């Protein structure tokens, strides 16, 4: 064998040998209808594991791959230039070109999630509002969703994208100023239904259909949110910065919003009752779900009562181990307070001046008797046991506080109460009366409207007496709007406002006190009605749990309706964050 031939043979053998590891490394995954998914080479498996790329050859988008290949190593530069172009197109209102550019960007960087999220938001929220025709607006909302659907093709099982689709379908369509038109368009948009239909998200299933038998945006959105939850639960996909509490609450909130929406559209019958019942069940399921927290422990919102009972039992046991110690410690601490502090504590909390308030808080903190202090003074024989119990108690009490804090963030008690109340015959009847009265009011039938309104207020009075927490939230907002119409009616009829036997005076008093809402008159100075539902019939503790996050006046983000609604042209990130501070 001459040298030249030998060299060639060595080269060929070398190439063939190198092909072996190459195949091992880069063999693509394939899909066989008979045998299912074949994992492919090492790189393919790594891509699959890290959800970096399309699962198999059949899912590879030639445009995306082609563009990336053609640009050699310059795709980041190209994406940067296209990003600038996209902003320019948005500025000069060339939305067709913008849409095409966004597709190019996504083709270049298909696994960069922020691009999909940011630009989908741009399409659905910022660009849609630039159009005057509501049909065009709806069309661009859809374009944002379609953009996300394309993103999901490239990023399988990515909960954030699945969640965002659910959010847009539910919140953007269901909460926009054009929600009446959007919901109507959505119900009849069969082509769009086909686009958003998936194996686990069957748009044609009873779970997705509204009272008219057509897909409802809240319920379809819920299915997408549930799918996002499924991916997190079964595949352990990361939430990427999204709060688990808010993430898992959204699907349940969709059923609540659905029930509210259909009532607003006039379905005030057993369909609404069923919707509320379903919402209540969903909300309870959400309460039973284990939620990871930023403290590194999991909790269940529905555990609050059980944990409370356990805390009480343990406190009793501690008191038995160290009898009389708690009172003794309290008296000692009280004796150590300055005369000013003691004086402040004698002033009722509501009457304290701002300076006194601060002093009072400090004094109360000084008076707090800690479990370990009690254990420390336990008799020698049981001190070790008491110390252990005190440690457990502190841990348990902390767990209870955390659950309560989380419940406050999602307004758990309010929505639970609301779901329970709304499915009652009284509530349905009360709402129907207001709805019918409003319709008569619009037709200027004042006499008839007045009668229906007054009947409605009586029903609402009963509900509010039973569930005083409802006076403080969105239910009250809706009622106050109707009461304003009622006021116009009675003034048109020459009667004085408020009528002497008005059953919702207490509601107006609470509104005036909490929100300084005196649009219907200043009721803030009115003393609370005695026995007027101060002790709720359903066992809720409105003083603790029904009260919104910050005590006297709820923060804007704590109002359920507001926290679910992103600003028209802002990213929804702020409203996704829990209102409170997660870290202790």
């Amino acid at each position, binding site marked *: 064998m001459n040298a030249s031939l030998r060299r060639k043979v060595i080269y060929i053998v070398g190439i063939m040998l190198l092909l072996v590891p190459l195949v091992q490394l880069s063999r693509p995954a394939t899909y066989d209808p008979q045998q299912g998914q074949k994992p492919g080479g090492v790189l393919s498996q790594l891509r699959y594991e890290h959800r970096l790329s399309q699962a198999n050859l059949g899912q590879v988008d*030639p*445009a995306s791959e*082609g*563009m990336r290949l053609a640009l050699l190593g310059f795709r980041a530069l190209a994406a940067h230039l296209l990003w600038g172009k996209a902003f320019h197109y948005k*500025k*000069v*209102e*060339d*939305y*067709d*070109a913008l*849409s*095409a550019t966004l*597709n*190019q960007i996504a*083709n270049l960087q298909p696994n960069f999630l922020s691009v999909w999220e940011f630009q989908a938001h741009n399409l659905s929220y910022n660009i849609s509002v630039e*159009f*005057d*025709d*509501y049909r*065009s607006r709806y*069309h661009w909302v859809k*374009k944002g969703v*379609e953009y996300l659907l394309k993103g999901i093709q490239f990023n399988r099982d990515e909960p954030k994208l699945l969640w965002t689709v659910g959010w847009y379908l539910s919140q953007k369509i269901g909460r926009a*100023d*054009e929600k009446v*038109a959007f919901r109507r368009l959505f119900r009849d948009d069969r*082509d769009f239904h086909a686009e958003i239909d998936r194996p686990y998200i069957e748009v044609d299933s009873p779970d997705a259909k509204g009272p008219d038998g057509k897909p409802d945006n809240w319920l379809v959105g819920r299915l997408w949110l549930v799918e996002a939850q499924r991916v997190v639960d079964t595949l352990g996909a990361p939430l990427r910065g999204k709060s688990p509490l808010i993430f898992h609450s959204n699907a349940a909130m969709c059923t609540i919003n659905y029930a509210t929406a259909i009532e607003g559209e006039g379905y005030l019958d057993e369909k609404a009752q069923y919707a509320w019942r379903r919402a209540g069940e969903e909300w309870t399921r959400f309460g039973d779900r284990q939620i990871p927290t930023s403290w590194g422990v999991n909790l269940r919102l529905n555990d609050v009562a059980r944990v409370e009972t356990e805390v009480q039992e343990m406190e009793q046991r501690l008191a038995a181990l160290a009898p009389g110690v708690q009172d003794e410690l309290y008296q000692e601490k009280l004796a150590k307070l300055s005369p000013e502090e003691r004086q402040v504590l004698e002033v009722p909390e509501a009457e304290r001046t701002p300076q006194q308030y601060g002093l009072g808080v400090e004094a109360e903190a000084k008076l707090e008797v800690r479990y370990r202090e009690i254990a420390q003074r336990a008799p020698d024989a049981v001190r070790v046991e008491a110390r252990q119990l005190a440690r457990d108690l502190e841990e348990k009490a902390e767990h209870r506080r955390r659950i309560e804090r989380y419940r406050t963030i999602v307004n758990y008690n309010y929505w639970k109460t609301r779901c329970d109340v709304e499915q009652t015959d009284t509530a349905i009847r009360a709402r129907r009366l207001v709805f019918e009265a409003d319709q008569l009011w619009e037709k200027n039938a004042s006499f008839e409207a007045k009668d229906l309104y007054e009947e409605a207020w009586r029903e609402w009075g009963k509900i509010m007496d039973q569930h005083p927490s409802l006076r403080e939230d969105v239910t009250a907002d809706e009622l106050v709007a109707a009461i304003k119409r009622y006021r116009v009616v009675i003034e048109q009829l020459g009667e004085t406002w408020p009528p002497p036997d008005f059953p919702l005076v207490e509601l107006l008093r609470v509104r005036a006190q909490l929100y300084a809402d005196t649009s219907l008159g200043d009721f803030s100075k009115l003393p609370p009605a005695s026995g007027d539902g101060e002790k709720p019939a359903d066992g809720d503790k409105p003083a603790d749990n029904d009260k919104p996050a910050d005590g006297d006046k709820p923060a804007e983000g704590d109002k359920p309706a507001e926290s679910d609604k992103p600003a028209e042209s802002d990213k929804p990130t702020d409203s996704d964050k829990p209102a409170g501070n997660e870290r202790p």
Partner: protein
Amino acid sequence: MVLEDDYFLTFMQWLLPGRQGIGALGWFMIWVPIVALLGLLVGFVRATLHYTARDGLASGILEGFFAVARTIDTAVKDLSQTSARRTFAMARLAVQESLRRLVLVVFAVFLLFVLFAGWFLDVNSDNPARLYMGFVLGMNNMLLLLLALVLSTFSLPSDIRNRTIYTVVTKPVRPSEIILGRVLGFSFVGTVFVVVMCLISYVFVTRGLNHEHGVDPTTVTRQTVDGASVVSGQTTEDLRHVHTFTLRDGQGRTDIAHGHWHEVEQVGEGENATFVVGPPRDTLQARIADYGRLRFLGRTGKERATAYNVGKEWSYRSYVEGGTKSAAIWRFRGITPERYPEGLPLELNLRVFRTHKGDVEKGIVGLLKLRHPDPAVNTESETFTFTAQEFQIDNLFIDRNLRAQKSDGTLKPIDLFEDLVDKTDGSVEVIVQCAEPAQYFGMAEGDVYLRARDGSFFWNFVKGHVAIWLQMVLVVSFGVMFSTFLSGIVAMVATLATVVLGHTVDFVTELATGEVPGGGALESSVRIVRQMNVSAEIDANVGTQLLQGTDLVGSNVVRFMTFLVPNYKELSRTIAENGPLVNGFDIFNTLLARQCLTTFVFVGVVVLISYFFLKTREIAA
């Protein structure tokens, strides 16, 4: 479509001093002496330095002066005695050389792009015509400029390096003929490419957008309205869209979807009737539009240059306030019964801005009327109402038989041409207002026009490729010029720099005037390293001031250079995404003429400069 002010200039308005400052001719008269003087100065300094090294400073200056004078003298002779025969022979050589350089590779790349274009085009686009056009025009432009760049810059340097230039210069060929021959030869190759690409692209666009719909029988509903049979339904899906249609007595059309519509005809009667859907209409158009001059009235009825700004970053459109005297008034000229025998085919492309949502399901109502331009005549038509359609062209035909309101409030019949058109210049005013208080209409001069007729789309497409051709010729000229004194690769980079500079004139101007946030090159680099965004305040210290000062000088030097290179962006405006061709409007012939003149002047000057460069280069040495 975005039409800047200067789009409406006639050729003479653009050329001569007047409406546009000193006009193109004025700029030419300023810049040619500057460039000539600059050239003479550089030549003189170079010659002086050369002779000073040999004979001392005094002799050097004198020799330098004579060398420049000699060169000018020779140049006059060379240029006046340039032979067309020899020039064409050189051009033929350039063509042969191009073919040897595998220019067909560019053609293969073009075919590859066209074949796989479908992958890159957004199938869900609302306006596929724009997308297709934007794609082919952008691709053709890029490929042709690339071709011109490679062909023109490597030829002379490689001839010089391989010494094949000796075989040429030892023949009785003048430098002017070498330069001209190369420019003509490479331009010829480019021209053949432009023609072929234009034809293939035309077929690609027309075939790509052509499609056929059927009718989905499950959607067809029939009813009788006022004694006429009315059939409604939906077409089948094709190219990812469906249309709805309504037929009266068997004839009708679909709605507009994806920027086009179809005629639909019913064949047969009753339940057995079938439907024939025609080819797509208005997909590829070349609307020939008559534009008017626009002025505005403020809310008190007082005239003003622009109406109101509603807070948009882009100030192209000005907004008139609804429910007030605020109005946009267009004055159209040359309106004659011969051109518009039936009336005025107005088309509107307005924007709406709502300060409150109002009824979200109802559009904003506008008012439109025609008025005699002479206030003394004081005649205006009755007011028409319309609902504004955004982001699509709204057709409004104004019949010549109109009515006007008399002083007692009754209406009297009037004739458009007799009563409203000023006979002296055939002008008439169209007044547009927004009817609803606290709502606004946004308008620019090109947003309301008369659709005079439809031109040929093919010829419009060809006109678009003329713009590409002009750019190609310019790149060839600059490439040849740089290759006379630079090596191939450096000449290519230099030519590319002129193209980039010519495409980024606006940016460079904004950079030099400090309008670009984040500062110039050095300041931006510091920001990148320090991870500061463009709006963050940078520390005010000596170092920063030094950087900013250097940036200011640098960017102004670059800005000065933009005056010396062709404005490629200006040359591409007819084929830009927001330009007339892509948006279905006929390209103004005057605009094309302006671009041709600009290009040929540039080519002439560049060829002259190239001659001097080649002449002064000591090839034989």
